[in-house]
């Protein structure tokens, strides 16, 4: 029967054969089409959103830079291995099996990380009213795979290109890319549902929900500590044999099966393809279940269900005491109010302070030195004071307007004067950070064997410098505020300072602290001169005497900037207008 012979109702539009044909299409094809559209939408959203997210963009660029830095030595190394293999040395490429297997594990971890994070959420919850979770998760897993490809495929391509060039054959590159794609797809299909399952568990557990920020910080610190201290090596030594004894090692065979003379097993290579072919659909099917587990849940309230009904005095037993103490030491009620609210908010949402931990990553070599030698360097107390000062400044004072968030209009139309708001904000930061810094600095000084006089100096400096830094931060932050809170995870935002404020405050603080240390400690002059000589790209290097002169200029300027900063911040709040 031709189309012309059919009744109009069957031949027109979506009716008749056409509709039946579409209904007969394999369901999986339709789901894949939906998944592709969801993935395309998510990628488009990311492409438009990421350039506006400063911190996210910076961490992405740092990550990509880390990959780019690795590429040249990787290329040279694999080219050399390829040349050795051409000469008959098969052991030159034995690492390929370990790299493929550990790479698979790494991609599983990365997939899980994306599943836990914002990539493990649909663009809009309403999407789940249109398509089932099983379809949505396919699209989001594809996006996770794209993120993985962005970081993983360039090193794979470069490594096997080097091998191909060294060996004089394009075949290794083909095998490497096929293996890379198989690893990426199967590892993402396994890791992403794991991440969703973790997310669902956290959302169902009041304890995990509360501890989430601390767990995240702890894991990040543990990871970086393992990387910087070399503890990751023994971990791989333990994991290596176990992984190599599993089918995951077959991905190495898949990668090397096209490399002549490498000794890869074609059977194992086929097994790797079969493993990937099984893991991808199985993982995605599991993804549907774990996505439902993670998404169809009433999140536990941050306060905790059992806390929500309790009087605040019971939950924060220090509350009334804190208010009384602040009222006793402050000249105005508004100053006490601002300080008390800053402390309460930080205590209850410590993730706002997350970025204060970033410089600790730079201190990992110091921790490594402490662990390996058991000796505390003489400059450690000064480093503690400098870090405490930075923390005190960057917590709330560096965004003295922005930390008020939605309450800013109420603050501006209240009787509170700008100076009360600034002083309250400084007090909120310094009340905790200053004594802790002083104690840690004195403790570090004792461990470093400093004299009693030096300990007293560093203890006083801990209190004074931290408070002064908090004051200094207010003026800088008031001139360059960030009023919109920054997204730091799928569910949380924080009123972080602007980039300009971070940069200006850090510069001023470094100038002040290094200047003061230079004037107080002759050894600091020598140390700075030595470091500049080693790392300064210019031919000119300042002498210790010139450094002292520079410090004599810098320190008074920074000291002068502190009261000016207070006046500027107070005036800015008094005169601030909403746009």
């Amino acid at each position, binding site marked *: 029967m031709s189309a012309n012979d059919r009744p109009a109702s069957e031949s027109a539009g979506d009716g008749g054969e056409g509709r039946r044909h579409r209904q007969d299409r394999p369901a999986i094809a339709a789901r894949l089409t939906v998944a592709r559209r969801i993935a395309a939408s998510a990628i488009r959203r990311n492409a438009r959103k990421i350039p506006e997210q400063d911190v996210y963009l910076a961490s992405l660029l740092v990550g990509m830079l880390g990959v780019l830095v690795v590429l040249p030595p990787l290329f040279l190394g694999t080219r050399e291995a390829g040349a050795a293999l051409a000469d008959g040395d098969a052991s030159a490429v034995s690492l390929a099996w370990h790299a493929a297997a550990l790479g698979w594990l790494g991609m599983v971890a990365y997939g899980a990380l994306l599943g836990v994070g914002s990539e493990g959420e649909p663009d809009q919850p309403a999407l789940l009213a249109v398509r089932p979770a099983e379809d949505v998760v396919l699209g989001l897993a594809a996006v996770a795979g794209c993120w993985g490809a962005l970081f993983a495929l360039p090193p794979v391509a470069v490594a096997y290109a080097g091998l191909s060039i060294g060996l004089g054959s394009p075949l290794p590159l083909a095998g490497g890319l096929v293996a890379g794609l198989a690893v990426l797809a199967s590892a993402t299909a396994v890791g992403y549902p794991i991440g969703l399952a973790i997310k669902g568990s956290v959302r169902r557990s009041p304890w995990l929900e509360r501890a989430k920020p601390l767990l995240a910080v702890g894991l990040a610190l543990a990871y970086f500590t393992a990387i910087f201290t070399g503890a990751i090596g023994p971990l791989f030594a333990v994991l290596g044999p176990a992984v190599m004894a599993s089918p995951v090692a077959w991905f190495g065979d898949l990668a090397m099966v096209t490399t002549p003379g490498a000794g890869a097993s074609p059977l194992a290579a086929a097994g790797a393809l079969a493993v990937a072919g099984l893991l991808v659909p199985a993982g995605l099917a599991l993804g549907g279940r774990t996505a439902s587990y993670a998404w169809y849940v009433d999140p536990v*309230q*941050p*306060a905790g269900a059992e806390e*929500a*009904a*309790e*009087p*605040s*005095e019971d939950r924060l037993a220090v509350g009334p005491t804190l208010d009384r103490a602040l*009222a006793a030491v402050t000249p*105005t*009620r*508004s100053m*006490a*109010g*601002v300080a*008390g*609210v800053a402390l*309460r*908010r930080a205590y*209850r*949402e410590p993730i706002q302070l997350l970025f204060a931990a970033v410089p600790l990553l730079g201190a990992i070599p110091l921790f490594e030195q402490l662990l390996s030698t058991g000796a505390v360097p003489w400059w450690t107390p000064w480093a503690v004071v400098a870090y405490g000062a930075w923390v005190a400044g960057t917590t709330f004072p560096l965004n003295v307007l922005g930390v008020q*968030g*939605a*309450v*800013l*209009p*109420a*603050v*501006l*139309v*209240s*009787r*509170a*004067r700008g100076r009360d708001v600034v002083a309250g904000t400084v007090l909120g930061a310094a009340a905790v950070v200053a004594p802790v810094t002083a104690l840690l600095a004195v403790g570090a000084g004792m461990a470093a064997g400093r004299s009693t006089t030096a300990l007293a100096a560093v203890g006083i400096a801990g209190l004074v410098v931290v408070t002064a830094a908090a004051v200094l931060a207010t003026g800088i932050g008031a001139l360059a505020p960030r009023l919109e809170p920054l997204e730091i995870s799928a569910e949380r935002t924080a009123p972080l300072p602007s980039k300009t404020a971070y940069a200006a405050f850090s510069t001023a603080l470094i100038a002040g602290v290094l200047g003061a240390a230079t004037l107080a400690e002759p050894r600091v002059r020598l140390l700075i001169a030595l470091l500049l000589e080693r790392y300064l790209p210019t031919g000119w290097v300042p002498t210790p005497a010139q450094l002292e002169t520079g410090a004599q200029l810098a320190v008074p300027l920074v000291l002068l900037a502190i009261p000016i900063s207070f006046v500027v911040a107070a005036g800015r709040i*008094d*005169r601030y*207008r*909403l*746009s």
Partner: protein
Amino acid sequence: MTEPAVRADGLTKHYGEDRAVQDLDLAIEPGTVYGFLGPNGAGKTTTMRLLTSLTRPTAGTATVGGVSIADRRALTARIGYLPHDPPVHGELTGREQLQYVARLQELPPDAAAARIDELLQRFGLAGDADRRISGYSEGMRKKVGVIAAVLHDPEVVFLDEPTSGLDPRAARVMRETIADLADRSMTVFLSTHILPVVEDLADGVGVIHDGRLVAEGSPAELTRRAEAAAGSEDAADLETAFIQLTTEETERVSERPARV
């Protein structure tokens, strides 16, 4: 003759080429409720920000409670303001938020505590006062915002959409509260889309459209005007008057050759 609680003379605010408020003249008697109506984007929030000193005018002057809006320090003691988004910290409990506002207003602690308890009771929030605001509904957040706005007993209170997001019971409490504020000689400048609220409570109504005040009068006057314009014997209400006024203005503006 008494000094108007709110007086504006040629109040104007431009954002670049965008004319948010243009030549606004107001004279609102003390102790009255003034309903400020207008479509979305008409300039209601900008007007409130101008009158509360949160935004600086491009031109014109205004006084609130006899104090120039240029003198924020003197003005703040006389005004209360509830923005459209309630000004609350989710990490605090309702009571802590109100204690914070009381401290910002420099209220004596004992008097503040008693007033907070009284207002929490009145708004039906006493049972939830020690829960964190992050767990509150939008209506509960709005209630906290209204209490914060009137905590220091200001002369003039500016309420931007105070009934939006409230359930019928809470909306009724809000209406009663607004009426009560006016009974206590507080002037209420009320922006809302809920026209029956204005019809019930307002002594005077201003309709703003595209930054200009296009009509002003009592609710009864505006509805009579709508009836007359429609040439109908059917009784009109404020909603009919609002739609008619804003439609007329939209047509008039669309015939205008160019904007500022």
